[in-house]
């Protein structure tokens, strides 16, 4: 029963993929890039191309966890006048379009400024699934944890190769939906080589929790997604999709997503024991 609760919204979608013998695909694009409507079309293309979970970025002035691709994209979104309320209306359009869960990836200050409980209520009101919070650790997250619990939203905190086992236990105990494992010590952005740190990290996380584990940072093509799907429950792709949208529009996103979706289906995968 606890597992059902903790799976929340995104976790159910990921487990559905896992039960079908494959890894899940989580795709990221920021709201407002290259335009408000362009972002909506880009995410719809991601959904049409086979993404199981959507991670919608809330553009922020000081994105310390993002590499240059996502920095530039979110700068363009902000220069276009994107507001927090526009991110909420983007979510509303996407949840009206499909049942694919839509999480928002956000640095903490915009949520604190909006009002944590007020944001949670408004976000749940437009069908949002939960938040991924790259600069909020559970240690500082009491207000968000309470609001997320009240509004039944996913709380996706991050774990890192540098996290101690003690912190992994504490962090995963505070997650709902899935656990976001950062594959490298570094910021977002496509990388050529697979990380050697990801698989041991996922093993440590799985020793601490029954929640699905998604691996992100540096995955940019179907081969890399296939590699990650072999040991993790979900592959999370961001900068490569941003670049695809920039270079090829929604059609480019659709094409890349299809390649990634093929990748997470490539290796036959044991269903998850529960």
């Amino acid at each position, binding site marked *: 029963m606890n597992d059902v609760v903790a799976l929340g919204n995104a976790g159910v979608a990921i487990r559905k993929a896992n039960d079908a013998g494959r890894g899940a695909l989580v795709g990221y694009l920021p709201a407002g890039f290259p335009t408000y409507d362009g972002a909506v079309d880009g995410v719809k293309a991601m959904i049409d191309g086979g993404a199981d979970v959507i991670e919608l970025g809330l553009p*922020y*002035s*000081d*994105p*310390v*966890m993002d*590499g*240059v691709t996502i*920095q*530039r994209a979110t*700068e363009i979104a*902000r220069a276009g006048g994107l*507001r*927090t309320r526009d991110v909420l209306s983007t979510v509303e359009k996407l949840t009206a379009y499909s049942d694919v869960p839509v999480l928002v990836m956000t640095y*903490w*200050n*915009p*949520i*604190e*400024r*909006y009002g944590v409980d007020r944001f949670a209520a408004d976000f749940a009101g437009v069908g949002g699934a939960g938040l991924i919070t*790259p*600069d*909020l*650790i559970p*240690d*500082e997250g009491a207000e968000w944890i309470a609001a997320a619990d009240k509004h039944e939203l996913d709380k996706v*905190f*991050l*774990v*890192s*190769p*540098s*996290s*101690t086992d003690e*912190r992994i236990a504490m*962090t995963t105990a505070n997650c709902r939906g899935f656990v976001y494992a*950062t594959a*490298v*010590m*570094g*910021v977002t952005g496509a990388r050529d080589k697979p990380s050697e740190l990801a698989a041991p990290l996922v093993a440590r996380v799985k020793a601490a929790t029954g929640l699905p584990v998604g691996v992100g940072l540096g995955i940019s093509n179907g081969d890399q997604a296939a590699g990650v799907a072999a040991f993790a429950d979900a592959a999370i792709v961001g900068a490569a999709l941003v670049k695809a949208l920039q270079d090829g529009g929604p059609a480019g996103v659709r094409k890349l997503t299809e390649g990634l979706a093929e990748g997470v289906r490539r290796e036959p995968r044991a269903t998850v024991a529960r």
Partner: protein
Amino acid sequence: MSTVLPDQFGHFGRFGGRFMPEALIAPLDELTQAWRDAMADREFTDEFERMLREYIGAPSLLYDATRLSDVAGARILLKREDLNHTGAHKIRNAIGQALLTKRMGKPRVIAETGAGQHGVATATACAYLGLECVVYMGEVDTERQALNVARMKLLGAEVISVKTGSRTLKDAINEALRDWVASVDKTHYILGTAAGSHPFPAMVRDFVRGIGDEAREQSLALLGKLPDAAVASVGGGSNAIGLFTAFIGDDDVKLYGVEPGGDGFETGRHAATISAGQVGVLHGARSFLLQDEDGQTIESHSISAGLDYPGVGPEHAWLAETGRATYRPITDAEAMEAFKLLSRTEGIIPAIESAHAVAGALDIAKELGPEATILVNLSGRGDKDMDTAATWFGLGGSDE
């Protein structure tokens, strides 16, 4: 007992804390432990004090500014941090953290800089201790502070121009944090002010508190008592916390932080973060910050590059909220008048940052009256500001 805060998680009341990527939490825990161990190790603190004495020139003088006092209408004492090696209080923090870097066995240092003072101080400390040094500086700042870029390079540092965001100090901090996430096993980030994630606000305070500790002793020797007020400028807040810490337990000593009022607080073009009074999270801590309705950071404005930062250290936020210290803005114009006044009455050209504190002290002197003694942190010297001053006062060319 004046420094019981922060708590073990870095909180000063509701301010401070650690709003950082999880990847940096374990390294921050290690740093916290290394700093605490070092401060409890006599060998480390003796070495730090020796370097302050023999390399920096500490203790800096406490100077009785009699001619300035005549104009001010109260007795003004200047803590002469401008006489330190490299010309500002910043070297205390840089040398302390560089020494800690050596102790942690890390060969590489990164730092951010706005005007270049902290970058120069860090490059100096790294040259002195034999550490690799990389300084991140916003592209806008590398252009307007070309002389300090040359200084850092001469000292052996690599200067990386940051071309994202607003291309100023806050973006240099962002870029340094991005470097640090990827390099933390071999790299220490020497943050330049008493802000950011725990343990930086408390650790930087430890390294700069000598300013106030020295001034307190010097005041007792000179006056036979403590001053009535202590005044310092506040950008991120390191020179102010360095002065205040020794006096926090002395209830009779009023503490004043002077914020950069830019074009005037009411114009919105300023960097008076505490006066603006909006709480939020930036660069790893909860504090006051300049932000719009959506929580996006707003660019600050000040004639003083060293005070031109949209955030402020969390301990200042706490001192403001508890009322132990009060904070008030001084405009660019008021600061530049004080810059000229101190130059003409005492033959001391201050940093524009420190000129804000002098201007604040002139106002405070009127409020406290002629019997008052006011201690001002003259945090840096004005050589770096001569281009700005020449433009402001129209000093180019001869008087003919």
